[in-house]
């Protein structure tokens, strides 16, 4: 989810994703964790590599990845709203 969120505003290579995720989530992923996620996401067809001359290969969101992220954000949004509403009334 963090990787998908990071790629939602444009293509990024591994290090750029680590920096970006740290900025917006306050969490610094290790290289092993990041590439574990990249491997899984690519297997599921949610991200794909972009051709590059550099060894740092950028990744981009696929249409199904974008769709999955939207569904997840929608669910998460509803959970957050419900929790916030219930906290207010508690």
């Amino acid at each position, binding site marked *: 989810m963090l990787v998908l969120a990071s790629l939602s505003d444009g293509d990024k*290579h*591994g*290090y750029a994703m*680590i920096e970006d995720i740290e900025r917006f989530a306050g969490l610094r992923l*290790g*290289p*092993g*964790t*990041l*590439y*574990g996620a*990249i*491997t899984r996401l690519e297997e599921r067809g949610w991200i794909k590599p972009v051709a590059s001359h*550099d*060894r*740092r*290969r950028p990744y981009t969101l696929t249409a199904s990845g974008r769709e999955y992220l939207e569904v997840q954000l929608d669910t998460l949004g509803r959970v957050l709203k419900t929790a916030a509403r219930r906290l207010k009334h508690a």
Partner: protein
Amino acid sequence: MKRLILFIAKMYPRAWRERYGAEFEALLKDTGADGRIVVNVFFGAITMLQRWKKIGSVTLLAMSALLAVSWWIGQRPYITPGTNQVFRMDSNAGGMAGFFGFFILLPATIVGLFCVLSCINDRSFRGSAARVGKVCRWIVMAYMAAMMLVSMLTPRTIVSIGDGYCWDLWCLGVEQVNATPQGQNLLYTAKVRLFSDANHVLTARKKNFLYAIDEQGRRFPVFQNSSALPLDTTVRPSESVKTSLSFLAPANARELYLTGDQVAMPWVYLYFGSDINPFHRCTLLRIL
């Protein structure tokens, strides 16, 4: 540290490295190197080995089942006949084989280490060193697996009264046991003989080496009368001396044994049949 991380990155499956290796190494160069990254890359490699080689859960399940069955088979203890025989720590099934096996493991580890260092430092040896390192890794893994299985399969030895048992070169045999009530407890006094299995050297153990244990795993310290020959007496080769020891145990203890609190060099923990091998059921000398 960077070299260590790049070396750990080589643990990722070959197919994964062919696909992601170059970009992963580029990332490792960007992220810098510290202990946290070493651990992260190591666990990442383990995860990928499980996922890409499809060995994960099935292998783990099979190994757990094999170990559980081995443990179950080895449950029934071997009780010595009590006819004045001497049993040795390394005489259990596979004990000597393990001892010699260890001397294969040791050079394999040294060669493996050398290969790893060559792999990192010398590019011209890289290919062959990596291959030798891989073979050594397999030898070490095979030894560990065999050691665990044999240890699980080997039943616990219970040395009957009358027989002797040697922890390495220092041996002890229980000859007679008396129990006398003392309040809520029973005072057990055992006549024992200390003897040596050595041919040339003197042997001795610390005074507090022995302790008593019951079927529930409760430990009872051993003590001696001031008139008895101390347990830390040095024994000469082929010498046998008699002494006595005592301990207090609750009257409800159904089984009581003597055993030793051993400390040894780290590699002794990896011997087949060694009483301090964590997978081996340690030998007990019956008192009750």
